[in-house]
């Protein structure tokens, strides 16, 4: 059985984003580690102020691509509100939306804020907030889904990826669900007859600029039949049907269990978790039920997953000081490039199913590129030992071979680089 210190580091890696070395050193038991991860009393990171763009010319000026990534990674690396960070990332992967297509920095910031606001709250509220989130309406074409031109993109992924999972609906439900979800639009700027944008003037004065609103004229008012329910259904009805469907709680609870534990729950555990979750869709009690399962800290869970690039970067930032002689902008673009080379840019998932995981993170290209993370930190001090490196990175349970390889390194710089390539660091 793994040592208590190894289990403590494991808890921080899974319930937070990384095993913060100061927390690991200061924690005496697994229960204490779990308690500190679930503690939401600490201060929230102050949100970055983003000006509301008054027109399309300003849309690309309000924030550079790297800014929310830096802000978010800093929030993840902080020693408080750990489960909020874990869950915000989980929901970003679950409700994947990409900057690439949305192409609207302000709305991506707002989207991130929406995810964080609901991350530890209620899944039903989160689902509703995301379904009418402007970035999601752009990403899965909900904003173009109208009575005259119904678009199936959102309705399909809502069922396949967000609630039921593939195989629990028919193409007819996609078509009817899409019709029901018609009418949601985004409050954009107005244009004059010559095709000039009326900067600062938005279509609806009663809706926030770039906010989502329901336009009855764009909605299909006729009868639809969606997953067995018939009526003049709208988006709210579709979400209600999905939340009432037993498969939704099972799908989401099973996915969160796999995410936190690293393997599937046994069928009885899944039934129990899903039944509890379905009662009120409160997210934190579900997390508490999952981590209360002895499997969470049992040996098969420890290092059963491949560490993601975000987890690697956050762990390095928790352990070593950031490079000092770069401007904020240069640092931001360097961070952006590191993630880009790893094929894993926050806020840019490769497709609506979210980020690659497990073996798809173990390609030689990704292993080699991960050394580039070191570009973001100061060179290690001359007196840093191999054991210090392992302790700082939370690798308290590194094996003999790893310790030998690091001890043989001619200098601390190489020892640090090697630690990032060690089997123990590559897994989590």
């Amino acid at each position, binding site marked *: 059985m*793994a040592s208590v210190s*190894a289990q403590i580091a494991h808890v921080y890696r899974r319930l937070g984003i990384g095993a913060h070395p100061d927390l690991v050193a200061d924690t005496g038991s697994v229960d204490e580690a779990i308690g500190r991860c679930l503690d939401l009393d600490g201060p929230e990171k102050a949100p970055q102020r983003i000006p509301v763009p008054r027109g399309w010319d300003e849309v690309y000026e309000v924030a550079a691509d790297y800014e929310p990534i830096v802000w978010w990674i800093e929030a993840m690396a902080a020693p408080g509100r750990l489960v909020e960070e874990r869950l915000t990332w989980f929901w970003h992967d679950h409700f994947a939306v990409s900057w690439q297509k949305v192409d609207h920095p302000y709305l991506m910031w707002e989207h991130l804020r929406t995810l964080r606001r609901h991350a530890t709250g209620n899944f039903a509220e989160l689902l509703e907030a995301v379904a009418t989130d402007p970035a999601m309406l752009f990403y899965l*074409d909900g904003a173009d889904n109208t009575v005259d031109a119904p678009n199936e993109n959102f309705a399909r992924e809502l069922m396949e990826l967000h609630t039921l999972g*593939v195989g629990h609906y028919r*193409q007819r439900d996609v078509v009817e669900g899409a019709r029901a979800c018609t009418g949601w639009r985004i409050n954009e700027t107005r244009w004059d007859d010559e095709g000039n944008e009326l900067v600062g003037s938005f279509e609806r004065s009663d809706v926030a600029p770039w906010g989502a609103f329901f336009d009855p004229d764009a909605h299909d008012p006729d009868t639809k039949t969606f997953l067995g329910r018939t009526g003049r259904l709208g988006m709210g009805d579709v979400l209600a049907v999905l939340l009432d469907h037993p498969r939704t709680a099972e799908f989401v609870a099973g996915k969160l269990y796999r995410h936190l534990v690293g393997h599937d729950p046994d069928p009885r555990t899944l039934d129990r978790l899903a039944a509890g979750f379905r009662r009120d869709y409160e997210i934190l009690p579900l997390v508490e039920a999952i981590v209360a399962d002895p499997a969470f800290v049992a040996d098969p869970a420890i290092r059963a997953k491949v560490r993601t690039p975000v987890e690697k970067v956050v762990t390095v930032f928790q352990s070593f000081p950031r490079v000092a002689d770069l401007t904020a902008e240069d640092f931001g673009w360097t961070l952006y490039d590191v993630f880009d080379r790893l094929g894993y840019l926050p806020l840019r998932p490769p497709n609506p199913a979210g980020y690659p995981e497990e073996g798809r993170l*173990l390609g030689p290209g990704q*292993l*080699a590129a991960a*050394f580039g993370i070191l570009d973001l930190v100061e060179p290690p001090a001359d007196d840093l030992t191999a054991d210090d490196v392992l302790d700082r990175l939370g690798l308290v349970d590194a*094996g003999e071979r790893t310790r030998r390889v690091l001890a043989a390194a001619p200098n601390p710089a190489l020892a640090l680089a090697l630690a990032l390539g060690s089997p123990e660091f590559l897994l989590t």
Partner: protein
Amino acid sequence: MNDDCFLLTRRQFLVGLGATVLTAACTSKTITVFEQTTTTAAAARPTIPPETFPRVDRTLVVVELGGGNDALSMVVPHADARYHDLRPSVRIEDPIDLDGEIGFHPNLARLADRYAAGTVAIVEGVGIHDPDLSHFTSMRRWWDGTDEPDHTGWLGRYLDGAVGYDDLLAGITIGPGPSQAMLGAGSFVVNIADATGLAPAMPWWIDDLDELFAAWAGFVPVDVPLDELTPVERAIRGTTLARADLDARLAPLRRAVADGDTDEGGFVADLRLAAALVAGESPPKAIYVHGHGDFDTHEDQPAVHGRLMADLDAGIEAFFETLEAAGATDRAVLLTTSEFGRRPEDNGGGTDHGTASTLLVVGAPVRGGRYGEPPSLRRLDADGNLRHTVDFRSVYATVLDGWLGAPHEEILRAEYETLPFL
């Protein structure tokens, strides 16, 4: 804890999108590490041993057009009035006519020249049986290439039987990460994003990559062969062994990039990189290009798809131009794939998920022309989609048998009719 206890054993590790039942031998107990989520995995199949298939000096380059390429806008059935009726918002008005019936998208002008020269096969009506219109299950089926999937991909099984671990650069994936299509049970695949290959951008305080990679290899016991290592150990050893060789092969291309001769992105950069590998020493047997462009054109299709077609045309041109300059046109065949085609009837601005698609096979060894059978635009299925006329495995079977010289039945686990384009 035992040094290697937590590391999964090789055959049991899941790689890829979905899932399979995996167990890890850790001391004497069995651990379920991942479980099946959507499909039923076949019982573990024996790995096809290396030297089962001949080692041909040929390369297959697969270009995956992810998201569902709208085949009806790539190869346009312009003579069919029904096409124009179904697509008031997204029809292509000015295709490059090929034979009075079909025409290429106007942005595929250089490909049209190659078609005229007889080196482009257009395979129409290609699809999967019982399609469910999901990106993710459809992709998996294209990667698997079999109705009895395990965690391997069709090209991975080819690499198992053709080279095994004898050549670590026989399979190269170009794009943001590995592809399940290339994943074997007994072979290695290197993924690279660009011409920097496996040379990471390092801080100034680590200046000797050779030293780093040599020490890094020390994490893996030297006396254990690659196929007996855990996935993590195998990835480390494979990467340390492949880096220098790959680096040497990519050096000329890197110099050209540095000189500013090439500053393209997208398909052009990827396919120039692929061509450099084919034209160089010991070319890979299979190159898989993926992750470029979003072909999921539910909205704004004419503009978005038009740009993708222009990029594809430029990429294919860059690929063959490079091979022609190197006198290496007889070395490679290029195949495009996509998880599905799109709905024949448009949705007002784009097209929703569909079924049958059109594939392109390009290269000097290809017998150009039209193959397969164009699906009827009148006899659509219950969802308003095309009924496929060619199983996608027939295309795979043709390139496996006819180009790579590997009997397709062993790789695809069933027999399929081949097409005469090779």
